[in-house]
């Protein structure tokens, strides 16, 4: 596998992203990004099944809109990591800031630490595994996909959720509008087990609870009071 290194202490971000975009569709390429130092939009808009290692902390929108690439942030990630990801895999070894995986359509986002507010907001098919805890408003208006929370969840979990599913191992501070806990089924254990395996986390699926939509806000309803 060919290896290319970009040092953001010496090379501009534009040069890195231009290079990555020019290699759309390419495989067997390993790109290392040194000294990211919180730069924004690192490896945003990649469309190739390549491996990208970001050797430090990333700023906003690392791996934004990713297609096919396997990215690893060897540090913490700023807001909107893997936002609108379509496919591929994003692995944050540290903590993630707000809106991790926001409106992601596909692929797998793994966060080894905690994730801040609005993790999985508007998610549309992405799977997100957070080994630690998530902040308030996780999976707000989540449409599709799975959010796994190995730790605790903050306030308003799954507020206005559509068809996405949340599995939580720890405490839930509060559920959002139209979200409720449901019994785990054999299918849930199967899906959850597979996701935990993919993420490399050894939690026991039997310790998780399922949160999904009550579907009471799917249609206008005079009795919904302030919900509309």
């Amino acid at each position, binding site marked *: 596998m060919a290896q290319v290194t970009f040092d953001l202490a010496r090379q501009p971000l*534009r040069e890195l992203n231009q290079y990555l975009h020019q290699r759309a569709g390419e495989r067997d390429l390993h790109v290392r990004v040194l000294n990211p130092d919180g730069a924004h939009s690192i490896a945003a808009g990649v469309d190739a099944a390549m491996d990208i290692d970001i050797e430090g902390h990333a700023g*906003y*929108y690392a791996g934004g809109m990713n297609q096919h690439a396997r990215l690893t942030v060897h540090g913490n990630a700023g807001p909107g990591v893997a*936002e609108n990801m379509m496919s591929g895999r994003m692995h944050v070894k540290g903590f993630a800031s707000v809106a991790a995986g926001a409106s992601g359509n596909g692929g797998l986002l793994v966060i080894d630490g905690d994730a801040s507010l609005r993790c999985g907001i508007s998610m549309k*098919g992405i799977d997100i595994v957070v080994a630690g805890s998530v902040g308030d408003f996780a999976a707000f208006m989540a449409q599709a996909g799975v959010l796994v929370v190995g730790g605790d969840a903050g306030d308003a979990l799954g507020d206005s959720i559509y068809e996405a599913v949340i599995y939580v191992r720890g405490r839930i501070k509060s559920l959002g509008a139209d979200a409720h806990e449901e019994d785990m089924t054999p299918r849930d254990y199967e899906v959850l087990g597979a996701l935990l395996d993919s993420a490399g986390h050894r939690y026991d699926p039997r310790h998780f609870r399922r949160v999904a939509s009550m579907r009471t806000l799917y249609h*206008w309803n005079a009795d919904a009071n302030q919900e509309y």
Partner: protein
Amino acid sequence: MGYAEDEPRSAQESWGYDRAIIDYIHRAAAHGLYEIRGLGAKRKLPHFDDLLFLAASLSRYPLEGYRERCETKTVLGTRHAKKPIELAIPITIAGMSFGSLSARVKEALGRAATEVGTSTTTGDGGMTAEERRSSKTLVYQCLPSRYGFNPDDVRKADAIEIVIGQGAKPGGGGMLLGQKINPRVARMRILPEGVDQRSACRHPDWTGPDDLVMKIQELREITDWEKPIYVKIGATRTFNDVKLAAIAGADVIVVDGMQGGTAATQTVFIEHVGVPTLAALRGAVEALEDLKLRGTVQLVVSGGIRTGADVAKALAMGADAVSIGQGMLMALGCNSDTYMQNGELHSALSDYGKLGTAPGYCHHCHTGGCPVGITTQDEVLEQRLDPAVAARRVKNYLKTLTMELTTIARACGKQNVHHLEREDLVALTVESAAMAGVPLAGTDWIPGRER
């Protein structure tokens, strides 16, 4: 005092509780739900009709009205984008979603825009193949919902428009009622079929002007700094919002006044939130002037632009271009009593009646039962709009607006419609003079300004 024969002799309608308000209270009491409807504000507001042009006379020299050239070319996105948008006219087609409109309508708008050399815009719901194919220049909206938003379409777009708000409902998200969520719409938005869909009112991955800087940078990086980035705001605190958008790095700012339309929103929102386009435009221009960015950041105004005179007045007040939504729908046949299908004219009256309305009054876009096949996803109704016929009508409308615009520009002595200026305008009312920042006709008085 004369009474009509059928009029009660004691009739005196209340100003505060007129028939419309009584009807509103009766409906609220019966249903316990607010009204949702389409199109824009119906109340009378200070508008471009309240301005007049001071054409050439002894102190100005006019151009010959029909033959002398009057330039209409418009370039948007010159600030940072490698590939700015070049348009033949300063009139663009506003963002309207596939979902609220049928795919055939989106195709027709694209065809018309392409034929006259202007742009059209996607909407909440993503980009359809039909509109991309038919539109030479297509602006791709990035909305809070991110329905259908994906990097492949970002790359296919000619410009990206980050939508922060809409004039009909600044601060509010979109709505698409279940009857319009057919299988294709549901698939594109990744929603269950038939659900009453509520679009988010906040973007999922950024929350304020500081974040917007980074969001714009991300979109520039993804598009290799080629495509202009527009920012669209619903008119409220326009002066501040335009400044923030400009400072955040927008190439183009779209300001949508409260007369702007919607496919479905609460009536209370449409009629009571936002500021009129006239006031919004003046605030936006002053914001760019304050930053010394006028001409660097282009300004597009929308919200109730209907005629060539409206376009000319918007340009004179400082807009670089206008954007039209409702006018385009009406050009397609919205609120017409007939529709053309298979070469024959058919009456739509009974279908208006089924909706409880009539041509000239219809705002029932939200129902999906559009009698003329425009704001619908119904397989039968959408056949009432032939894309070729519809495209021709929209093209004619755009041509008419352009002819009216250049007629006024020539009369004011301008060889280029972008040379129209505030000094060419006067106001008919004190309110419009204050809002537009132009003098009351016959005076040098601009209310709120020192002489």
